[in-house]
Structure formats: structure tokens, C-alpha cells
């Protein structure tokens, strides 16, 4: 079984203000496989994938649909457990964790941005942003939500409901929701998939800004134009990581 281990060179990309000398590892996949179904219907969505992301990196995972990038995203995001292999997140072996502990990791350490935004339609923007804080002990949840909205440039839209916002604005609310918990990783799954090109540029700009500010961002996309934004791009095909363009 071929193990495609991708060791990120220390000098990958030009050092930015965020990528300080201390390059702690955020996540590491070791020979992770994910198999769906049994017997003849077995689908090997991930085949012994090795993958490491360091703090402060901006990584694009690219690949056509069916390449296994969504499965990879689910495993990175602790939304699904690998069938085989080890997954380390922030030094902890996540692949051995139960449902409660995984929920805890998702809440404390990962900020999600989805293609469909997934905002709750009945709530104003700030309530949506506040949502992850409900599942942890947090003081001044509204203050934190307003600060996160200000960070994505929506300080004047905090009381708007999702239906009163444009697609780009809705996705910025979703980014604010991902930011509000101060996560170790922002995981964006096709964040521009439902947006026009202007809104896409806006959203990608915000993600890049966050990375410049020190955030670790993993971006999953099938769109080469989107993948051109991050400094590091890994490509998936048939459940394996294929190549890495520096």
C-alpha cells in the first residue's frame, strides 16, 4: 500500500507576518483511509492519505467531485471518523475519540464555513454568529459575536436576518460564526460554490486576510481559480493525494 506522505517543507512559501518562526503542527493525518459500504459495494473514498497542516498555513485541497476531498474535509473537520489510520489534531489523537469528545473538538478548535452557508433563517446575523458559543462556557456572547461580525465587515448588518443579506454577506456571517470561537483551524468547504465572482473574491479576500492575521485555513474546492489564492495547493484524485504545487 503506497503511502503518500506529504511533509511540508519548512520553507514553503515566503514567510509572512503570521507564519512566525514557531510553526507548530495543527493537524496530521497518518495513512488515513475511509471505506464506505461492505463487500462488492465497497467504496474506498480515502486511501491511506497522509497530510500535515502547520499553524498559520493557508492550504487548498483541490480535486474534481468524487476525488474524496469531501470525505477528507469531513475527517479533518471531525465530522466523520476514519476507518483506518491515525488523525492527530493539535497533538491529540482524534481518531480514537468518542462522539462527545469530537463535538468538543469541533466546538473549541474548528471553525466551519459551508458551501450552503447553513445559517438559521429565523435568527438575526449576530444570533447565528453566537451559536457555537452556546455550547461552551462563554461570557459576553453578544460582544464576541459583534466583534466577529466587525472583522468580516458586517458591523452594520448585525440585526439583519439571512434573507435580508446577499449571498456574499451571508457567507461572511458564516465566516464570522467560524471565527467567534477563536479556533485553531478554519475549514472552508467550497465557500464560493454558491457565490457570483464578485462575492467570491470578497469571501476569498477575507479568508486570505484572516490567514495573514495568523489563522490557519484549509480550503476545499474544485475550482482552480479559487485554489490559486492559497500559497499551498494539494490535489486529490481517486481517494489519494496526488501532487503538491508549491
Amino acid at each position: 500500500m503506497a503511502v503518500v506522505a506529504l511533509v511540508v517543507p519548512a520553507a514553503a512559501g515566503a514567510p509572512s507576518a503570521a507564519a512566525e518562526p514557531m510553526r507548530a503542527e495543527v493537524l496530521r493525518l497518518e495513512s488515513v483511509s475511509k471505506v464506505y459500504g461492505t463487500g462488492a459495494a465497497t467504496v474506498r473514498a480515502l486511501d491511506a492519505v497522509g497530510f500535515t497542516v502547520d499553524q498559520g498555513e493557508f492550504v487548498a485541497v483541490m480535486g474534481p467531485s468524487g476525488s474524496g476531498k469531501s470525505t477528507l474535509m469531513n475527517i479533518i473537520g471531525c465530522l466523520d471518523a476514519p476507518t483506518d489510520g491515525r488523525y492527530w489534531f493539535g497533538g491529540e489523537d482524534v481518531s480514537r475519540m468518542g462522539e462527545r469528545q469530537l463535538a468538543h473538538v469541533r466546538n473549541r478548535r474548528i471553525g466551519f464555513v459551508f458551501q450552503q452557508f447553513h445559517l438559521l433563517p429565523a435568527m438575526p446575523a449576530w444570533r447565528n454568529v453566537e451559536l457555537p458559543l452556546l455550547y461552551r462556557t462563554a461570557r459576553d456572547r453578544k460582544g464576541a459575536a459583534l466583534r466577529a461580525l466587525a472583522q468580516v465587515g458586517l458591523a452594520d448588518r448585525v440585526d439583519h436576518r439571512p434573507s435580508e443579506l446577499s449571498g456574499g454577506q451571508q457567507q461572511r456571517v458564516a465566516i464570522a460564526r467560524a471565527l467567534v470561537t477563536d479556533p485553531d483551524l478554519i475549514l472552508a468547504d467550497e465557500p464560493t460554490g454558491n457565490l457570483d465572482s464578485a462575492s467570491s473574491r470578497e469571501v476569498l479576500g477575507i479568508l486570505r486576510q484572516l490567514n495573514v492575521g495568523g489563522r490557519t485555513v484549509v480550503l476545499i474546492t474544485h475550482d482552480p481559480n479559487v485554489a490559486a489564492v492559497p500559497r499551498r495547493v494539494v490535489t486529490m484524485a481517486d481517494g489519494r493525494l496526488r501532487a503538491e504545487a508549491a
Partner: protein
Amino acid sequence: MSPLRTFETGLRGILSHRLRSILTTLGILFGVAAVICTVGIGKASSDSVNARIAALGTNLLTVTPGSTAVGGVFGGTGSANTLTMSDAQGLKSKDNAPDIEAVAPVVQVRESLVSSSTNWSTQVQGSTPDWLVTNARTVQSGRFFTDGDVQSHAQGVVLGPTTAQNLGAGIGDTVTIAHVPFQVIAILGSSGGQGFQNGDDLAVVPLTTAQDVLTGGTPNSVQRILLSATSSDTVGSAYQEADQLLLATHHVASPAAADFTIQAQSQFLSTAQSVTTTLTILLASVAAISLLVGGIGVMNIMLVSVTERTSEIGLRKALGATPADLLRQFLVEAATLSVVGGVLGVGGGLLAGVLIPRFTTIGVSINATPILIAVGVAAGVGLIFGVFPAARAARLAPIEALRAQ
């Protein structure tokens, strides 16, 4: 998640799904209110029937003669003339029958009454002053005849209110019965029109006078004897006393061969009570059906809304909610809706209980049991169907739940 925040999240869930919340609350509200009203109406009608029957005299016993058996042909109960004035006298004895308060021997014929303006055919009874007590009747105006009137064969008549009205006769007027003039000495109060005969359409005259001019035949015999016990608790012993006494005076050895029958009004009461119990059961089933329909409505709304909210459940899970967090949130939502619906339903039911008697002739009698059952069932349905589908959704993998739209 702290209990306070769970509560807050649950309430926010309710507020952000207003239509669903209102429909659920309405379903529970109407179910509970319907049960309270229908059972209340059933209870009130049963109470009122019981009260009217009790007003007829629950301590009343009626002695009727046994049947004749001539050549093997039974003439039916009351066809024999086996009851006499001396039977009535004997029953009146406080020594032999201490639990019998009043004794009224009765003879009765149907006669035409003629007043100055018109005539009217009705039931004419001959009896004693105890007739008033044993029939639980009152006099509206005038005075009922006395023992003295009975002894003197007085030609005075007491008319039922309907009879007096139909004859156009008042106190002091003369009414002719079987060609004999009687003076109207009293008008009875209304009986409420209960029983098998209209208690308001009759005339009562002293027993002796009736035997003289109306019934003829054997002067000593009476058609029945009305007895009233000292209280409703002593009906049983009064029955025993009358039975023993009459068996002895009629020289009958075994009760099976008795030539008389004693009937208690309370037997009629228990029959009537079983009828009203049936009525209450009928109304309770109607209420149960309305509760069931309301419950199914609540169940559907809850099931649909949980399906609709599967992606919300997925999102909350992705953002770090544990299945227990979600379960508690839905529990708070369902419990709040059920309690609010239940309380409003009780309020609505009680309000209807006040308004229905005010604007209609239907009485409503509220009691606690149907309220508790209705609230319990409605809240149970709300809780079960609010929580179980949500619990199932909370166990889904977050990505699967997120994909649901």
C-alpha cells in the same frame, strides 16, 4: 450546556418557529378545552337529573296490591284489592314502624272536572294530608285538606297548577266532579313535570270523599299506599318494617307469597343514574376522540417540524452540540409548548364553563379529574412526539443531517 442556557435555546427555538409553535399550542389547547367542556356538560346533566329525581322523594316507598289469579289467569300487579285502610293505619304506628314518617293511602280514578267555564278530564286522587309529604309536593296557594276534612268527608279539592289553569278555576271556585260540587281549597306548586305522569295535571280530594262519590266499590280498600321514610338513610329499614307488618296483618307466611309489592323510589333513582352514567361515558368518549384528534395534530406538526429542522440539528452538531444538548433543547421546546397549550386549554375550558351556562340553558360542571387527564394526555403527546424524532435526528452523523434540506 447550563440549564439556563438550554432553556434559553429552547425558548428561542419556539420563538423562531412561530407558526409551528402556535399550531402545536392550539392543538393542545382545543383538545384540553374540549375535554373539560364535554365532560363538564355530561357531569352537569347527570347531576341535574339526579337532583330532580331526588326531589321526587328518594325516601318514598310505594305499596301496591299483588296480582289476582282467577282460574290461573293473572290480572297483573295491582289488580287485586288487597290493601285496606287498616293497612295504612297499621303502617302509621310509630311503635311498629318507627322509620316510616308519613303514610298516604291513595285511590285514584280518571274523571271529568267541570268548572263554570269549561271542563277538563284528569286524574283524581283521594288521599290524606300525608299525600303532600310522600309526594314531596308543596302548596302554591290556599291550604291542603286536613285530617278533619278527611274525617268529615269534606267536599274540597286541591288542583294541580296545570289543571287549575285549564279549568280557569281559582281558590274558592266550585268544580263539579262526577256531578258532585267541590270547592277549590288549594293549588299545588309545580312538580317540575317529572315522572311518568304529569304531576302538574291532577286533582286531590279527601280519601273518604273520593270513596263516597268517585270509586264506590269496597269502601275500605285503597289502590296503593305511599310511604315516606324518616330520611333517605332509613329507606331500607322502613321497607323492612312495612314488609314485616303487612305480611303479618295479611297472614302471609312466606315473603314469596306476598299479596303486595313494595317499590322504592331509590330503585328508580339508580336506574336513572345508570342512564346518566351512560350519557357521561358517551360525552367522555366524544371528548377522548377530540383529544385524540388534537393529539394527532400535535404529533404531525412535531414530526414535520423535526424533519424540517434536521439540517439545523446537523449544523448545531457541527458547531459542537452533543446529542444530549440537542435532546434537552427539544425537550424544553416540547415541554414549554405542551405546558402553555395545556394551561391555555384549562383556561379556555373553564371560561367556556362559565360562558356556556350564561348564554345557553346547558349547565357545565367542572371537576378536576378530566382536567388532569386531558392535560396529561396532551402534554404527553406533545412531549413524546416532540422529543423522540428529535432524539433520532440528534443521533445522525452531522454531515448527513446537514445534507437534509
